[in-house]
């Protein structure tokens, strides 16, 4: 058996064995991994409305129970109404309502934005006044650790709390990530619509700003309804 043939044969056999092992491991563990991802999603939605805190450990089952009690997963209709079942297809706009004492306390919009190296996924929670941000979380991204990756840190996400997606006149302007510090770069009347940027992560900030604007304008009909009716906005309204 020639040297070269032996090498090729060994490589082929090794590749097959490794592929089988990795596929077996992946499919075998898939169930557990998916459960973790779902739990993580619930945790992030709860975190964005402030029901749980970052860094604290919760006994198993509490997350699921809290989620079931306070969050309703529904869909936004084309005219801004809330519908119970999706229309189906790409027009689907999922939305999560934070219910407290029968009233809608906040609504959570899933964010799926372009980032520099991949998608940035997270949740943006808005208060029932339809204008103020009550929380922002990032749960998946492919940005550079230490630069764009800092977007998943609590200090960055906390900056979003209290900011507004409308300007002083009530027009929709979305929320933007400034290049540098808001206090230094942005004029006073606009400061509520900007959060501090991260040095070295300008492009990530640019893409996320554009992604947030795109998604928030899609959900604008819902926000307009909230601005008009506030917490009394009944989920059954079409």
């Amino acid at each position: 058996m020639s040297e070269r043939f032996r090498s090729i044969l060994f490589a082929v056999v090794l590749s097959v064995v490794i592929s089988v092992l990795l596929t077996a491991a992946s499919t075998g563990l898939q169930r557990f991994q998916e459960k973790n991802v779902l739990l993580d999603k619930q945790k992030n939605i709860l975190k964005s409305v402030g029901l749980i805190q970052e860094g604290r450990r919760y006994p198993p089952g509490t997350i699921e129970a809290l989620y079931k009690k306070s969050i309703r997963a529904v869909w936004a209709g084309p005219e801004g109404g809330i519908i119970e079942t999706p229309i189906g297809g790409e027009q689907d706009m999922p939305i999560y309502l934070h219910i407290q004492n029968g009233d809608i306390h906040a609504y959570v919009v899933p964010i799926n934005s372009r980032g520099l190296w991949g998608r940035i996924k997270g949740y943006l929670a808005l208060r029932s006044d339809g204008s103020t941000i009550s929380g922002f979380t990032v749960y998946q991204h492919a940005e550079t650790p230490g630069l764009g990756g800092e977007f998943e840190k609590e200090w960055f996400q906390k900056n979003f709390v209290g900011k507004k997606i409308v300007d002083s006149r009530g027009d929709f302007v979305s929320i933007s990530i400034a290049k540098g510090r808001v206090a230094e770069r942005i004029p006073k009347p606009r400061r509520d619509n900007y959060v501090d940027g991260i040095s070295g992560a300008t492009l990530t900030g640019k893409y996320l700003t554009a992604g947030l604007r795109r998604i928030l304008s899609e959900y604008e009909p819902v926000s307009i309804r909230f601005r008009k009716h506030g917490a009394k906005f009944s989920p059954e309204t079409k």
Partner: protein
Amino acid sequence: MELTLSKPFAAIRRSQSYKAIRACLWEINPISKQILGICSALAVTVQLRTAIVMSLALTFVVAFSSLTISALRNLIPRNIRIIVEISIIATLVIIADEVLKAFLYDISKQLSVFVGLIITNCIVLGRAEGYALSNPPIPAFVDGLANGVGYSSILIGVAFFRELLGSGKLLGFQVVPEIFYRAGYENMGLMLLAPGAFIVIGLFVWLQHTLIEK
């Protein structure tokens, strides 16, 4: 009494495995003496918890990759040797990563890319090339285990100081009492950043070199 107790201990002390592990903890420690694997030692030692998980993952990978490569050492063609070794190491790392994602999801998110980077950790490939290729499987396994233990000792030591001094906690539990903070004590923020890690590792290296000279 003393004689009968010390006999089995003396036997263990003379065994090859014990000598290998002790050497890797001290004389030829992979991080402080061979200066390998520094990158992950900087990144994952911010907290004791992540350092422990990373240590276990690396020890698992280096022990079993050395075992596998040693078992195949007469079959691996010379001209694709390095690629075969890396493939085997990568397979083990991916399996370790998948297991972490399935059972320790929160920690795996904190470790993020660094579990994958075990593939590039010089210790693993270094032991494969330097020992596993020319020695039988069981000694190779022990050698891998020993190097893993040596690496873990430094990682856990560094993480211990970084978490204690940098956030006043150990394993997530508050250790520095509240009265210290009120008296004006502040956490050393530098310990949470890479330069702080560099300094602690540097001190460990210096300490070990000084004590061994003696």
